[in-house]
């Protein structure tokens, strides 16, 4: 066989292997671009911790494939309710789950409590995986925006999402992450706003618990891409 033919054959095989072994990559547009942060403080934070934010995005993409990080939702945002330029490391996720009539029948506070219990601890740990983030004196806290479908929409209807926005001051988060306070105490010191679709429900009180769902839940038959560990 000539060198040319051997090369052609190799090319075909390489293409087939590429199709079969393609590695998915997280979309970088989940991060708010540095220049779209509106203060010097926020842009400095975003520049300093760009690597940590990319790692956060990649970790969520590979290790929690049932959640979808919203576009431009990872960044150093200012909570609307705060007038001064306090900057919170923020993240917004949509939690995909099978529609459940039992879950839909719960009170909104109970659904919110379940989501807080499942996700806030593990997400805070991911957000502070790089210790330099929480140690940065310019960082004032953390915002987690959790969103899920309220119930399966009827044919022709648009789905309605429920959302909770959780604002955690840095000192409270650090105490919780250090094991100094339980999740119940952290939740009690945390401001949580609820939304039913586009309608603000105001501040809601939650009854939370330690939940190991994120640690134990596995998407059936899910295999990590080569070179990825969780």
């Amino acid at each position, binding site marked *: 066989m000539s060198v040319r033919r051997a090369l052609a054959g190799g090319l075909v095989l390489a293409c087939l292997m590429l199709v079969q072994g393609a590695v998915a990559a997280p979309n970088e547009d989940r991060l708010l671009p540095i220049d779209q942060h509106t203060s010097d403080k926020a842009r400095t934070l975003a520049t300093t911790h760009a690597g940590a934010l990319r790692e956060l995005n990649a970790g969520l993409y590979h290790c929690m494939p049932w959640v979808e990080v919203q576009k431009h939702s990872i960044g150093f945002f*200012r909570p609307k309710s705060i007038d001064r330029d306090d900057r919170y490391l923020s993240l917004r996720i949509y939690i995909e789950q*099978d*529609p459940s009539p039992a879950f839909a029948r719960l009170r909104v506070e109970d659904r919110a409590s379940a989501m807080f219990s499942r996700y806030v601890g593990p997400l805070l740990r991911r957000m502070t995986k790089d210790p330099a983030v929480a140690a940065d004196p310019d960082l004032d806290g953390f915002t987690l925006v959790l969103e899920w479908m309220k119930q399966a929409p009827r044919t022709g209807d648009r789905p*309605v*999402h429920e959302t909770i926005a959780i604002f955690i001051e840095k000192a409270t988060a650090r105490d919780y992450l250090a094991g100094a306070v339980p999740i119940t105490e952290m939740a009690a010191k945390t401001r949580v*706003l609820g939304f039913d*679709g586009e309608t603000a429900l105001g501040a809601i009180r939650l009854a939370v618990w330690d939940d190991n769902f994120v640690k134990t839940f596995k998407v059936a*038959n899910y295999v990590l*891409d080569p070179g990825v560990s969780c």
Partner: protein
Amino acid sequence: MRSDRLRILLAGGVLLAVAGCATSEEWSTWKAHPAHFASGDHMSFSLRNSEGSTARVTRQDVAMARDESWWGKPITVSQDQILER
């Protein structure tokens, strides 16, 4: 001679591509997760999974299934009701 070799090469490629069509059991697994894996496009799944092997779901499969199980534009709060950039 040259066209014979080309035919053999093409046949080999096709065989490689179809070698792993999913079993009915694998498809049951796939379809048992309607919210996560509602995809009707089984191209990459078929390529990867062979007879007798356990079904494998990659991150690419999840993303593809999610796109195809899209429920429509949701009614939800906008980011700027909560946060300032």
